[in-house]
C-alpha cells in the first residue's frame, strides 16, 4: 500500500498501518534526533515521543508532506530537550546506550563491503562532522540536517520547521559556512581525501 493509503488507514485508527509508517521513517527520525541532541538515549526518547505524538495527532494531519510533518514533531521534541538541558545542564562524558553503558559509536547504516580502513576514515569524518554540527546554534543545525542530511528541498524544510523559505536559505548558507570553517580548523583530523583542497586559503 502507498504512503497516502497507510496514512488514511492510520487516521481511522489502524495501528498496523501506522506502524508500517513508523518502520519506514524510524531510522531517519532517529538519525535526525541523534544529530540534534548528540546523545543516544535522548535521541531514543525523542524518537519514541515523536511517533506517539504523531499517532495521537494524526487526525490533524491535513495532507502534504508526511515526512515534513513528522520532522516538525521531532524538531519540537528536540528543541524541548535542548531547552530542558539549558535549564538543568548535565553533560555526559560519553554517550550512553540503552543499557546505560558507555558506547564508542552508534550504529550507522553503511556499506559493509568497505574495508576496515575505509570504515575508520568514515568513522573519523562522522565524528568530526558531528562535532561541528554540535557547535552550531540549534536553529542552524536543524536546517542543515534537514536539507543536507535528510535531502529535503527548501520548501519542505520550511514546512518542517514552520519558517519562511527565505529564512531557510539564510540559515542554511550560514550553517554551511560555519561547518566549513569548523572543518578547516580540524582539517588534520580529516582523512586526506576529505581535506580542503586549498589549505593556503583557509
Amino acid at each position, binding site marked *: 500500500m502507498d504512503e497516502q493509503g497507510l496514512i488514511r488507514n492510520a487516521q481511522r485508527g489502524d495501528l498496523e498501518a501506522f506502524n508500517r509508517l513508523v518502520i519506514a521513517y524510524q*531510522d531517519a527520525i532517529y538519525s535526525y534526533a541523534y544529530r540534534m541532541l548528540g546523545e543516544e538515549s535522548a535521541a*531514543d526518547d525523542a524518537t519514541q515521543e515523536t*511517533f506517539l505524538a504523531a499517532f495521537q495527532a494524526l487526525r490533524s494531519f491535513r495532507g502534504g508532506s508526511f515526512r515534513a510533518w513528522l520532522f516538525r514533531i521531532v524538531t519540537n521534541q528536540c528543541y524541548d530537550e535542548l531547552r530542558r538541558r539549558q535549564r538543568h545542564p548535565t553533560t555526559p562524558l560519553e554517550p550512553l546506550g540503552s543499557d546505560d553503558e558507555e558506547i564508542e559509536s552508534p550504529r550507522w*547504516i553503511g556499506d559493509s563491503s568497505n574495508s576496515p580502513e575505509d570504515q575508520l576514515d568514515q568513522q573519523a569524518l562522522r565524528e568530526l562532522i558531528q562535532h561541528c554540527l554540535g557547535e552550531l546554534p540549534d536553529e542552524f543545525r536543524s536546517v*542543515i540536517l534537514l536539507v543536507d542530511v535528510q535531502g529535503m528541498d527548501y520548501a519542505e524544510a520550511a514546512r518542517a520547521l514552520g519558517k519562511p523559505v527565505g529564512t531557510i536559505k*539564510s540559515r542554511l548558507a550560514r550553517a554551511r559556512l560555519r*561547518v*566549513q570553517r569548523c572543518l578547516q580548523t580540524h582539517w588534520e583530523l580529516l582523512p586526506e581525501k576529505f581535506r580542503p583542497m586549498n589549505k593556503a586559503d583557509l
Partner: protein
Amino acid sequence: MSTEPLSERDYELISSYLDGEISGRQKQTVELRLTQDARYKLAYEQLSQVRSLLRSQPLLRSPRSYTLSPNVISVSQPSPKPLSLLPSMVRAASAFASVFFLVLFVWNLVSWERSGLFALEGREVFSQAAPAEVAPMQPYPYEATQSEQPPMSKGGPLFPTPSELYPPPEGIGEMGGGGGSGAPGGFEAPLLAPYPGTLLAAPTATVPPDQTALATPVDEHGRVEQINSSNIPFSEGQARAETEEATAQASRRAWALRQLVYGVLAVSFALLALRSGKRRT
C-alpha cells in the same frame, strides 16, 4: 579581483545556487561572478565540499523498533488527563454560571410585571389622572328631599368627608383664619353647619374668596365639588405623585441595570464555556 571579503548575501546566493533554489536572474549573476572572481569561486567550492560531505553521511540505524503497541498507546493516554481537568472544570462552571444568570434574567423580567414596580407604574398614571377623575362628582341623591337627614347624621357616612379625601395641609387653618372677616376656621364652618336647604350651593361666605384656591371647595354636606389640577397647585397629592414618579423612575433604572448585568454575565459565561469546549477538542 575584489579584495573585499564576501558578504553573507554572497554566501547565501552561492548556497542557493548549489541547491538549484535560485531565480534565473540571480543564477546569471552568480555564474558571471564565478568566472570573474577567484574568491567567489573558492567560496563556491568550499560550500560545495561541505554540502557533499554532509550529503554523503549515512543514516544512523535506530537501536530498536519504535512501532507502537496498544499497551503503549493506552498507557500514554491518561497522562494528559490531569492537565485537561482544569479546562473541563472551567467549562462546567461557566455553563452553570451562564444558566444561573439566564434564570435571574428571566425571573427579573417576569417579576417586573408582577411586582410593585408594575403597580408603581400604574399608580403614576392614576396620580396624574386623579384630578380629572375625581372632578365629575355625581349629583347628591338626596337633593330633592330637603327635610331628610343627610346620611352622614344617620349612621356611617356614605361618602368620605372632604377632610378624608383632601386633608388640609398643615397650617392652612391658621392661615385661612387670618384672612377672613371674623369667622375663624372658615374652612371648617360649612362642615359643622346644619344640612342646608339647597344642595350644590356655593361655598359659604365664611370662606374668603382668596382662600378658595387653597381650600378644597366643598358644599355644605361635605362633598367635594369641582376639583381639577388647576384648583390645587402644589397640593400634597401632586407632591406625592411626583415622589412616586421619582421612585418609580429609580426603580425602573435599577431594574434595567439588573437586566443588563444579568444578560451580559449570562452571555459572557456562555461564550467562555463554548470557547473552553473548543480548546479541548
